[in-house]
């Protein structure tokens, strides 16, 4: 009933937008990373055609990731922070999502609303709140002082990795819980009843039914928060602001804002993107495999 040309025509504007303002800008990173540097002004000269690409500087940057080289420490630190924050997020997020999905009856709507609430409060507003809480005279140190847990309250906001990890967890947990909740909600309850009828203890039913069925949900939710965490630079800047806790994102930020070599920054961005694309590809392969197993 609709003319055939209508659908491509409707999509055209959006596709054009994405090509011009997403793909082409991304290509600009490649052009600058593989481009040259002006010998006098030291600013990058992008190479737009693949024939003119010069990989020397990008390979030099990549070599920096070898053990004991300049980016090795930063990369390791980033991976540590993300891994720690991700683990903590799962340990908090999974029980919460599980409870809301399975047990909250009358309070479910309220709890879902409360879990979604942080989405509506700006990320930096929440970081500001966090900084106020951990300030030298803030609530946390006050509680520590009142309960006499320490006589010397720690300095939370100057290069303390614990604060950075805690802030990452605080910032990203909501984005983990909601997809996890959706995944747990999709699990057919009758499977659990079947497991119980066949004599599984509640714990066995959880381990052998719920957990495997939520595996792709866990993976997906982890990827959703791991990707932005790897590119984060504002969280460490706000809660620490010290080179001792700088992450890969901070390194990129420095190269562009005030640093001398944007082309090195572009190479770093490219390497980060490739690394994250690898992670995403692994996730997609894992999901495809899980689907195949589910069908068998």
């Amino acid at each position: 009933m609709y003319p055939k040309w209508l659908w491509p025509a409707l999509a055209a504007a959006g596709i054009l937008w994405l090509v011009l303002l997403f793909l082409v800008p991304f290509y600009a990173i490649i052009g600058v990373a593989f481009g040259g540097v002006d010998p006098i002004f030291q600013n990058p000269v992008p190479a737009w055609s693949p024939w003119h690409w010069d990989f020397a500087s990008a390979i030099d940057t990549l070599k920096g990731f070898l053990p004991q080289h300049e980016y090795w420490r930063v990369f390791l630190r980033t991976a540590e922070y993300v891994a720690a924050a991700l683990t903590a997020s799962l340990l908090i997020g999974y029980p919460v999502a599980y409870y809301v999905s399975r047990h909250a009856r009358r309070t479910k709507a309220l709890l879902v609303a409360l879990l979604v609430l942080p989405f509506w409060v700006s990320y930096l507003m929440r970081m500001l709140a966090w900084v106020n809480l951990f300030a030298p005279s803030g609530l946390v140190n006050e509680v520590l002082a009142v309960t006499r847990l320490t006589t010397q309250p720690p300095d939370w906001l100057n290069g303390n990795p614990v604060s950075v990890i805690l802030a990452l967890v605080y910032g990203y947990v909501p984005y983990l819980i909601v997809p996890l909740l959706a995944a747990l909600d999709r699990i057919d309850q009758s499977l659990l009843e079947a497991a119980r009828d066949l004599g599984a203890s509640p714990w066995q039913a959880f381990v052998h039914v719920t957990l495997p069925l939520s595996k792709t949900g866990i993976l997906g939710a982890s990827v959703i928060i791991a990707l932005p965490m790897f590119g984060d630079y504002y969280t460490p800047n706000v809660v620490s602001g010290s080179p001792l806790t700088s992450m890969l994102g901070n390194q990129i930020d420095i190269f562009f804002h005030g640093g001398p070599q944007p082309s090195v920054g572009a190479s770093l961005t490219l390497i980060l993107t490739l690394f994250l694309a690898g992670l995403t590809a692994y996730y997609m392969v894992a999901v495809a495999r899980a689907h195949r197993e589910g069908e068998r």
Partner: protein
Amino acid sequence: MSAGAASSPRARSLARRALDWIANPWGKPRFLLLVTWAYVGVSILPVLVAIQFSFNAGRSMTAWQGFSLTRWYFGDPVYSVWHDPSLRHALIQSLKLAGFDMVIATPLGVMLAIGLSRWRSVAASMSNFLMLLPMVTPEIVMGVAFYLVILHLYTFIHPGTFAQALGHVTFSLSYVVVIVRGRLVSIGRQYEEAAADLGATPWESMRYVLLPLLLPAILSSLMIVFAISIDDFVISQWLSCGAGCDTIPIRIYGSARAGPLPAVNALAALMVYFTVIALGIAYLLFRFLTRGERADRSTRLLVGDMAALEM
């Protein structure tokens, strides 16, 4: 030896009971209840404390010095949000960008969603893939990309409000597409086919059947676009022209560590109020638009839209 043998099964059964107590899908999950409410409390408390301090009568961010409703909003003649030009400007800049984003990204995304979900071709599936990329690209990568492209290729665009707006539309577009496409799938095509059988022209069935059915999704999209645009920090910062282009998140970022005054809290709190008001209006409109559908279903739709976003 004997004591150990006697106590170990008992210990195991205790551990077992504790585990069962936690994991029992039909029992009372007290532990989980505790974890959940503790988490909800911890996630919301700091924000409430921050809002509370926007009403502090004194200049401290951590010591409560009495209640003042208006000082940091417009009472203080120098430092309040209203009187400090940098804060007021950031507020206007954020609203400007969010408004532009809503006006451009929503129609563009709706058209893209309709087009992509019905156009069957290799180009369409490639575009579907392309559409998802901005959602999985870390913001810093997008920020660098935009920064470099306007520096080296699109040299006619300068860092500033226009560039920021283009960036905002680019990362919002995919969200609109995902929301609208979800609704398109749940509507199906039978209503439009019925309209066509009854003699509606393609334009009429789109205008009088499809668009009204899509309205709830369009509304959700507007809401989400507003929220992610006003929340955005990275893209706005990379495309900023300096102090004149500061948005609220950039101001918060800049002053979070540099001896902030409660005026920053007031600015951030204003953003929360705006979002809450917008959310309330959207919710009422949403209930109104889906009044034919069951109430719990319409709430589910809204939540479903949110969940779809994250997947």
